[in-house]
């Protein structure tokens, strides 16, 4: 009896380790391959001799990218959109979530429904597009010609994130707030000195959600930003891919490195910042999902 118990357990353990190892390798391999292919020589890439480690090492593909002004432009645009977009979304979400967390807010039910309804029903791509065009016209009329501001202000709000913040604020004990009010704190001081410090981990998580979605945003940026100089990185990558898979455009390619290497180099450049901050934010990510757990 004892023996049988050990064998089933052992088998299950072995299967677990095998599966997890395989899955982890699957998750990591494409990225390792991208790094290797970006610094391998032309023949090695074009004839698929690169499998894991780089061959005939060259850095010309990276040099080409780094000498491309458009690349740096798109990089700074993405940083701009990520920074200001996250700040704007956090500002509106925190203020709104704080007000929603207060039981004394009039029409609280209406505001909550107003928010949640956007999670149930979305107008769809075409009406949103028409609406963004109107917004763009208004912005241009106000003298804001830079379409990046449209992406920053108009896009990327998420009802789910507001609800996460609201739930966190609701969990702050009201005694602390009352104490602060007795000490003469105003509404804004209560928010900044009591509520924000007490829900730090949720705020970090939500900021992270916003920042990642801003960094990775593609579709609407491509639709709405007409000026090439204002394209964010993701649009730049996609346009390069479309250009580089066009057989006619690539017929005259006679560099010492493969055209694929340029694409891989771009991918590597775009994920390096995420890889650098990833270890620090990963623990918040896990926490955020639990915070977003079901409300009974």
């Amino acid at each position, binding site marked *: 009896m004892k023996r049988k118990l050990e064998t089933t357990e052992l088998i299950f353990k072995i299967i677990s380790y095998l599966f997890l190892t395989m899955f982890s390798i699957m998750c990591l391999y494409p990225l390792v391959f991208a790094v290797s292919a970006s610094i391998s020589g032309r023949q090695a890439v074009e004839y698929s001799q690169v499998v894991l480690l780089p061959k005939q090492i060259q850095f010309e593909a990276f040099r080409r990218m780094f000498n491309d002004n458009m690349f740096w432009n798109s990089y700074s645009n993405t940083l701009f959109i990520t920074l200001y977009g996250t700040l704007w979304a956090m500002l509106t979400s925190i203020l709104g979530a704080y007000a929603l967390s207060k039981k004394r807010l009039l029409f609280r039910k209406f505001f909550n429904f107003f928010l949640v309804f956007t999670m149930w029903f979305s107008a769809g791509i075409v009406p949103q597009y028409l609406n963004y065009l109107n917004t763009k016209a208004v912005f241009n009329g106000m003298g804001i010609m830079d379409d990046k501001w449209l992406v920053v202000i108009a896009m990327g709000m998420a009802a789910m994130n507001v609800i996460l913040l609201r739930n966190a604020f609701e969990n702050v004990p009201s005694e602390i707030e009352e104490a602060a009010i007795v000490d003469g704190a105003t509404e804004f001081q209560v928010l900044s000195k009591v509520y924000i410090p007490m829900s730090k981990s949720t705020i970090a998580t939500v900021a992270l959600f916003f920042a990642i979605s801003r960094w990775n945003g593609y579709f609407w940026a491509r639709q709405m930003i007409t000026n090439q100089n204002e394209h964010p990185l993701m649009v730049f990558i996609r346009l390069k891919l479309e250009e580089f898979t066009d057989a006619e455009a690539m017929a005259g390619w006679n560099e010492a490195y493969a055209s694929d290497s340029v694409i891989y180099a771009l991918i590597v450049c775009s994920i390096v910042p995420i890889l650098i901050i990833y270890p620090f934010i990963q623990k918040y*990510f896990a926490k955020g999902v639990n915070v977003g757990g079901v409300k009974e």
Partner: protein
Amino acid sequence: MKVSASDYLVFDQETKTYREDAEQKVRDDVEKHYWLHVGRTVVKDWRLYIMIVPMFLVFLFWRYFPMYELLGCFKVSDQVLPVSQQLFSGFSYFKRLLVSGDALSVEFWRALRNTFILSFYGLCFGFPVPIILALFFNEVRSNIARSVYQVLTYLPKFLSTVVMTTLIAMLVKQGAITTSYGILSQFLEKLGLISHEVAQAGLLNNPHFFRGIYELSGIWETAGYGSIVYFAAIIAISPTSYEAAQIDGANKMAQMKYVVLPSILSTIVIMLITRIGSLLSIGYEKVLLLYNPNTYVTGDVVSTFAQRYGLQGAAKGIASAAEMMNNVIGMLLVIGANTISRKASNVSLY
């Protein structure tokens, strides 16, 4: 309106005197002069109401105004005029899409079917993987090893759709005369899963592989991250439960069946209901980046159909009508799933 005090006189049994019911008076005052009461409260508490304004406006301008634009599906679509000035066309676009039987209608039905199939496959194949992953994470006793596994499997969730689809496109790309085809295609060919011609032509150009690529990349992207919820439920199980089961002679499988699964069942049910609720909201960005005219047969979904006709073409009314149907069915699914959840388990998601 003036209210006489006598209306609120109540007889107090203890003191044997009449006194005014102050609470009732306040309640009635609030009711009679409701908007005055609202005004006073807002003025007194103005800071709180200022705070909600920016969020309210953002959602109003960019979530609710588009819903107004959506009404274009009932109007004669015209790019020049705003929706309010367009002529009313009734349900003509809906009729055209649903019952006319012309090429456009056939294409719409195909898109609707693809939307269902893609999400349904996602539900069947994508849903169990995070649960299995969480069970396996639980088997890893060493904290360091588990952290390494978790860090690696969560990673794809952080990559953007563009990066992911670009990687896929490179890994399964078609071969030219001068270059060989993608490394993943080569690997699959070596395993004997696909023929040389298919690999050479590029898997993304082949409608038979679109759904597979879409679902597998979806699992690759979300499985690790999705396991967090289940893993949190599993580690919350008290060790005494396992011990009790072991004393009763339960082997590993029996422990799974009688200890672990019942403990995470409520989480599974909730996630399943959420999943069913979002059955029609396919991530259009990924489809848009992966599909091409060769794979419209299996890859085209309602959102991309609308994008093609409404944004690239000028058939805004048709496109809006298609999205309207998709989103209304989607909303009914969400509300239905939520209602069932509340009835069945007393858990409401919203």
